[in-house]
């Protein structure tokens, strides 16, 4: 081993000493909380009135974690003397967050904009079965979705896709 060149060792000590005196970066959860970005993929919310039970989201999910059941109902015609309409009504729309990969394919492929991302992330449960969120819970999550935000300069975006 060559003889010791002290400066490098002393500089290292200086770095740790300086860091000791600087403010700390710890965020003391749960007393203090960090707010994630608006686009953060925290949880998926469902806007039930838009859903037409087309099953595209359930089909395109890589994990098959969306469970959809629906039935067809007849509705009165829109105008006098018209035909009776059939609409699909959702019976069951469950997302199993124990399986969900948070990839967002379901949100993207939905043609009727019924699914939205929300940055909420505090829904840990003590039992895995409780991670299956049903239609009403997903409706609650939908209320927390953020407003569409403006884009960076130079962006030319046709539709606000989230």
């Amino acid at each position, binding site marked *: *081993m060559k003889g*010791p*060149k002290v*400066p*490098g*060792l002393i*500089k*290292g000590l*200086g*770095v*740790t000493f300086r*860091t000791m005196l600087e403010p700390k*970066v710890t965020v003391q959860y749960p007393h203090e909380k960090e707010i*994630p*970005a*608006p*686009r*953060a*993929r925290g949880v998926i919310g469902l806007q039930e009135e838009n859903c037409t039970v087309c099953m595209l989201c359930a089909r*395109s999910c*890589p994990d098959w974690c969306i469970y959809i059941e629906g039935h067809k109902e007849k509705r009165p015609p829109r105008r006098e003397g018209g035909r009776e309409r059939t609409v699909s009504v959702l019976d069951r729309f469950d997302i199993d967050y124990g399986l969900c*990969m*948070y*990839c*967002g*394919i379901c949100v*993207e492929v939905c043609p009727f904009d019924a699914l939205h*991302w929300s940055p909420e992330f505090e829904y840990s449960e003590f039992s895995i079965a409780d991670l299956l969120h049903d239609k009403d819970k997903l409706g609650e999550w939908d209320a927390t979705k953020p407003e569409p*935000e*403006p*884009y*960076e*300069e*130079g*962006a*030319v*975006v*046709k539709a606000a*896709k*989230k």
Partner: protein
Amino acid sequence: MTTDTSSMPEIDIDPRALRHLADAQVNVELDTGDMILNMGPQHPATHGTLRLVVRLDGERVLAADPIIGYMHRGYEKLTEYRTYPQITTLINRIDWLSSFANEVPFIHAAEQLMGVEAPPRAEYIRTILTELSRIATFILFLGEFGLQVGAVTPAFFGFRDREYVLNLIEAATGGRFHPNFNRIGGIKDDLPWGWVAETREVMKKVFDSCNEFEDLLLGNEIFVARTKGIGIIPGDLGAAYGVSGSNLRASGVDWDLRRDGKPYLVYNELDWKVWTHPAGDSYARYWVRLQETRESARMVLQMLDQLPAGPVMAKVPRIIKVPEGETYVQTENPLGEMGYYVISKGATGPFRTKIRSASFSNVSILPWLLQGVYVPDIVTILASLYFILGDIDR
């Protein structure tokens, strides 16, 4: 368990020449037997579930045998039964520390087969995010390499500084670790307002962080004594084994796919430099990655200045069926050279994908490299090669 050296190429360098201290046995009658040490799948030094069976003579390694496969998740089989958007989500998780960079070669392969080109703004944003992933994973390397050689503090600095970059990626893509942002024909969405200014701020922090690592570790005499001359990979031998990326550049080989391979993304529109180091030891690998982090930060700043306006998605049908054909795209990922060989038969998903991952080839040099070193040096060498188990085993 000795390593079978009959099939290895002839090399000039005598591995025993790597023994740098006294070879003399003090007392021949006390010649003890060899000990087999299993640095098993669970070990803090092996970066995941790598199993190293080493035969030791005291503290010196006589032979080492890496056993991989503990983390095999069957990616190539998975891709046979998924569509392209679903695969994009899954392959994020191959090299999970720089996940955006895993998507890029696959998407480029699919775009090549479809004959679609992403608009320039999309390519710029892709490159920015790739370089941000490179910065994120290298900063973690700079920190945890210190942890492997014994200094506990740099690891925390590494994680702390990585958080800034991850927050940036989250603001743009929605996911910190798994962005899932590429789509065939472009990227999913444009950047949010204020992102460019924030990125400039974070790049300043990256430069400060690199300077801090240089002060704390690179100039530290103990660190230098632990890493100089350890694990020297000769350049031609490394290339023969398939070692790629910063490991090869640290052995003096001037090869970077971003400049020398088929042009991809926007690297040929930027003014940047490839860093090499002649020594080829662990110190060189650390030094090269430190310089590359700074270089990536400079590239990001250039790209933010040159960011063109325009759409971020080309015109593609809603249900994407990639026409028949096969192609191979390789890119310079942070861990090394990653390639995807995609065979398509016209369906919504590929027929077969072969993933050439960088760490798989990087680890193949371990039996040769670990001969004759001390046990602490095993840890240094493993840390300096910087492989990710998800990348080895896929």
